[in-house]
Structure formats: C-alpha cells, structure tokens
C-alpha cells in the first residue's frame, strides 16, 4: 500500500477518535433537550465546572478560598490532603447532582410552560453564572488533571502496523487517551440506553420527553425527572471534562468544547443518543479527511468551518438531523 493511502487511513482512524470526543460533549445536550426541550447552552461550562471541581477536590483545595481570605483576612488555600481519583469523582458526581437540584429549584421550576427561547436564554444566563462561580470557587489558574488515564501514541499499534508502508512510514498513530475515551463513550451510551429503556426512572424520563402533560397526569413528578436529567447531563459533562481536561489541563477554554458539539447535534439530531455518536463520527472523520486532502491548498485550519458546512449540508436534506424525530406540527 502507498504511504499516502496509509496516511489517509491514519487520518480516518484519528477522525473517528476525535468524533467520539465531540460526541461525549454532544451527549449532554441531547439528554436535556430530549427530556425537556431545552437547548442547554451551559453544557460546555458544566464540563468546565465539573472538571474544576474534580481537580479541586483531588488537590484538597479550599473552595471560595480567595473570597474567604479577602473577607476574613485569612490565608487558607488547601486542606492539606489529597483525595484519590475515584473518591473525588464520586464526590464530584454529588456536586453535579446538587447543581442539578439548584438549577431545577431556582431556575427551571419558575419557567415551566415558557417559550423555548426563554428557556434557552435562561441557560445562557446559567452558563455565565457558572463560569463566574467556577472561577470564584476554584480560581482561574490552569490545573493539571491526572486520574490515571494513559496518554501518548500507542507503540503497540505503531509497531504492529509499521510493516504496511515504506521505511518512511512509522505505523499508525493512535493516542491511548483517545482509545480510552472511545471505550468510555461506548460504555456510557450503552448505560444510558439501558437506563432509559429498562428502568422505571428511565421510562419516566422518556414519558416526560414525549408529553409533559400526559406524564403529569399519570403521576410522574416533573421536578424529579428534570433533576434526574440535569444530573445525568452533569455526569456526562464530568466525563467529557475528564477526557478533555486530561488533554489540555483544566482551564476556562474547556467550556469552549461545546462549539465542537454543535455541528454534531445539527447532524445527528438533538433528540437521539445514537445520533450524537454517529454525528460525532461523521464530523470527526469528515473534518480530518477534508483537512488532509484540501487543507494545504486552502491555507489550512479548515476543520472548524468545515464541520459546520458538513452539518448544514445534512440539514438541507434532513432538518431534524440523521436520527432526530420528524417535526410534525398539527393545526
């Protein structure tokens, strides 16, 4: 096989892996939209908040220490302990559940039956609020996140595939972190599908998604379901925050990963969990292959805009996305 062909395969494989990372972010959007019809603008910031909370707990950082010190003239920054990764993840999940309760109690509950655009605007406010709270709680400095995930190119894959090309071909490059992220994403999707199909709460969640009024009439608590949905979305945000935070360190830019999820949602549909995965894969492979093939002749850096162009093309032919539910308005 020619090296050029092998490079194209390598780009495709890496595109698939990148797509999984995008899908991890998109999943959180889908969960909330599916259950409540809210496009949660704050999903990216939730990933940032979750990752910052996780690092803060692991490092034994005192939350709001800047505020406490400025108010009381103290100099407390750390508790002096280090929490193991698994325990810290469990505690962070608890924080995300508490956040879900607060969002429901203080924001969404007061906006029931409002127009979708009002709910969307509320999530914009929530995003900025969370950004500020994250900084105030944990500081704006970059933090290294190490929960034991491997990083770097897999030597095994390189050695096993090096023979395919010439002496200039080193074998396929696959990042071990991307491989772990793929496994995590697959497990997450399976767990979410099982939860929504085979548990009482999952079925209640789907019922609310189908029709709020009907769900209420059969005794399903809308408040509980929305707390549940925001909690699950918070958990998904934590997973995305761990993977992306391991790559780049935990810092404000983590909140911008939401931008990578938008074309995935446009393509896969806002209401389908498998759609988020398939959409992510198509966007990931599409943008990477386009950059590989046409990037040099177009000055490079084509990925960001090409992802949106690709999503737009799909939208023209399937406005509800590949897996989205067809929109039928009855008069």
């Amino acid at each position, binding site marked *: 096989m020619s090296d050029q062909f092998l490079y194209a395969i390598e780009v495709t494989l890496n595109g698939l892996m990148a797509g999984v990372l995008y899908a991890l972010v998109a999943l959180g959007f889908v969960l909330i939209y599916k259950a409540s019809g809210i496009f949660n603008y704050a999903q990216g910031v939730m990933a940032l908040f979750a990752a910052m909370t996780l690092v803060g707990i692991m490092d034994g950082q005192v939350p709001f220490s800047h505020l406490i010190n400025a108010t009381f003239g103290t100099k407390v920054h750390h508790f002096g302990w280090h929490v193991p990764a698994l325990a810290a993840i469990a505690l962070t999940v608890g924080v995300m559940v508490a956040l879900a309760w607060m969002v429901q109690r203080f924001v969404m509950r007061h906006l029931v039956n409002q127009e979708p655009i009002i709910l969307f605007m509320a999530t914009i406010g929530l995003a900025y609020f969370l950004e500020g709270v994250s*900084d105030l709680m944990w500081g*704006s400095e970059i933090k290294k996140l190490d929960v034991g995930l491997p990083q770097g190119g897999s030597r095994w894959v390189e050695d096993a595939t090096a023979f395919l090309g010439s002496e200039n071909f080193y074998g396929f490059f696959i990042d071990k972190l991307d491989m772990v992220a793929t496994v995590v994403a697959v497990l997450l999707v399976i767990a979410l599908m099982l939860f929504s199909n085979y548990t009482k709460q999952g079925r209640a969640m789907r019922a609310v998604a189908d029709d709020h009024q009907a769900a209420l009439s059969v005794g399903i608590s809308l408040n509980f379901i929305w707390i549940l949905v925001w909690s699950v979305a918070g958990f998904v945000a934590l997973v995305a925050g761990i993977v992306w935070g391991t790559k780049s360190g935990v810092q404000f830019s983590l909140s911008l990963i939401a931008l990578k999820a938008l074309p995935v949602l446009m393509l896969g549909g806002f209401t389908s969990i498998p759609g988020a995965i398939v959409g992510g894969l198509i966007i990931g492979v599409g943008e990477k292959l386009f950059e590989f093939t046409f990037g040099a002749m177009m000055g490079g850096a084509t990925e960001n805009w090409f992802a949106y162009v690709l999503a737009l093309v799909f939208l023209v032919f399937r406005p509800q996305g590949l897996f989205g539910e067809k929109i039928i308005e009855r008069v």
Partner: protein
Amino acid sequence: MKLKLTTLALGAIMAAGPVLADLVLPSLSYRTGPFAVGGIPLADGYADYFTMVNARDGGIGGLPVRVIECETAYNTEKGVECYEATKGEGALVYQPFSTGITYQLIPKATADGIPLHTMGYGRTSAKNGKVFSHVFNYPTNYWDAASVAINYLLDENGGDINGRKIALVYHNSAYGKEPIRTLEELAKKHGFELSLLPVDHPGQEQKSQWLQIRREKPDTVLMWGWGVMNQVAIQEAANIRFPMEDFIGVWWSGAEADVIPAGDASNGYKSLIMNGMGKNYPIYDDIQKYVVDTGKAAGVGDQIGTVLYNRTIYAGFLAHMAILKAQEIHGVADITPPMMRDGMEALVITEEMMAANGMPGFGPEFEVSCENHGGPGVGAVQQWDASAGVWNQITEFKASDKSIIDPLVEADSMAYAAENNIELRCN
C-alpha cells in the same frame, strides 16, 4: 436660592482641601476568560510592581502611582471600553497585553495623545517612530522573535540551516500570522524549507496539525500560540514523540502554565524570552517585604517569579523609568500623557538603572529615539527542566537580523502612513 447653592458648592470645595495628584497607569487585565491563565500573572506583576514602588520609594518623584485595573477578558470590545472608561483619569500609558486590543487602540490613543507600550506584541511596524508617534514596542517585537529563533538554529547548526525543514504552528489570527513574512524572507536567505500549520482558536483540537508534523518530519517546529493552544501543542508534540529540544515557542508560548499540564513529557521544550527569569533578583526581596508580607499582593503570591509575572515586572520597570525621564525633561512630577510620551521617546535603559532597582541583567541595555520606538530587538532562549520545574536560560540576549527586519518594518509602516495620511516625523 441660586446664591445659596453656589455658597454651598464653594464651601464643599474648600472643605475638601487640595486634591492630591497621582500618576495613573491603567491595567487592561484579563483575569477571566479563555486567556486568564496568562492574564493573571501579567496583571499581578504590574500591580505588585507599583505597590512596591509606592511603599519602597514613596511613589515616583514624590507622587504615588495609582494602577486602575479594568477587566477585558481578552475581549477587544471590552478592551476599548476599558480604554474609554479610564483615559479620563489622566492615564499616562496603556499596556494592553493583547494584539487585538492594541490594533484598536493605535488610532484612538494617537488621537488622544496617550502613549501605548506594547513590548513583544502588537503592531510590529510601530517600531518606526516616524510614523507611529504614540506607539512604542521596545525592547523587542514579533519579527525580532522570528529572527532570534532562526539565529539560534544557525548557532546550533554551525551557521548552516540550508535544506532544513522548519514548521511554524501558529494561532490562526493576526497575532499568529505576524512572523510568517519574516520567516519567509529568512527562508530565502538561509535556504530552509518553511511549512505553515495554522491552528484555529482556541486550539483545543490540533490532531490534524500534529499528524502532518509526524508525516513531514520537520527538523524544527516553531510555535506562535497563546492560551490553551500552547498546552495542547506541547502535549500533542509529546504524544507523537517529537523531540522537545527541537520545539521552540515564541515568548508568549513559554510560561510555566504551558508546560506543566504535559508533565515530564514537556522536558526540554524551549521558548524565547525577552526579560529575566526566576526570583533570583533583589527586587523580589522588596516585593516580598513591601507587598506580600504587608498583605498588599494583587494575587495570592503564587505567581511571583514566574515567566509572565516577571514580564510585567519588567513592563512596570520600563514605565517607571519613562516616568522618571519625563519628570526630568519637563521639570514637574505631575506629568501629563504627552509628557510621558516624551519620556518614553527619550528613554535610556542602562545596567546601572536595572541594578539600582534590584534587577541586574533583567533585560538589555537600550536607547529609544524618535525614529526607533522598538529598541534593540533582542531575545534569548530558555529551556524547561520538568524534573526541577524551572526554566533555564540557555543563551545570552542576542540581536535579530536587522538586514531582514528593518526593510519589512519600513515597508509596512510606510504603507500604514500612506493609508492614514500620516505626515512623517523626526525630520
């Protein structure tokens, strides 16, 4: 009624007593937003420097310095708003630490008669004082940085880099594109092959660029990044096992925050510097005594001695010296922005001045003139030691290739002058 009001107003003014003058230096900080990681030490350094000067020296020329901090979140519109909101306070000089904000402020500040100081960033051709009367970018600029990096490679390769492959990974913005023209000219002169790899903002995803580097196997990778782009690039370089000693960033891609997230894998990474590094200077004893120990530090004190903190200590020092020069020229302590501009244009920095301020060897000696607002255009190289967690300076401060830089500065500044009908100065 009118008489009563007038009497009351006059009484209030008299009761208030004389208004104490101060020297106002706005700080367009970004402690929040995507570039807060760099913005925090930059803002802390500038604030702490003048807190120390006020406490140690009683201000400058007997007048206290008042630093007004205005948060921009690195957003250009907010930066302009901060400028408009603070210029009326008697702002002597603006140092925005953002190329985008700088570009917006150049015409405004020039029209308002307030000087801008953009060391190592902003519009490179502002070095030409004949065109840019109120913009200063001493002691160095982006194009000098590109040339210093190539000079370093020449030194490392016995003066011959003909045929070598050099890749530039850059932030796909006006800032990131700054060195391209210079590098293209240098490629013609020295015969190296230049490849360009833009990274879109913010730079969280760079897999395509680093796969391309893995395929093309350049001998050296140069980086013009900022924010998260730096951390991701260093991690991706480590992932493909690109040799860190062949990876060189500009001075905005060489802070502790850029290398720490990659851990031991970032060991050996290099970057350019324009000023002294570490805490081993007497000035830090003063900062500890007058700022940290008295609880007046702008931050929590954990940034002291870091690369970006040191940069604004240096920026503060240069502003300090320019104020002294302006006071000396005009014979008054309470200087105005036009006087400050005069001080900046007549600035002379010597080793004695740096040593007297507790900063021996912190930067190059240089002189500013009407024609040259850019200083000597020098830079050095530092290398990261991951196990010790410190940067080590591995070269002396060396000059850029003026035979390449000066014609580029002349061409770009003259084009700006023609576009904006600017009459040349310094005749």
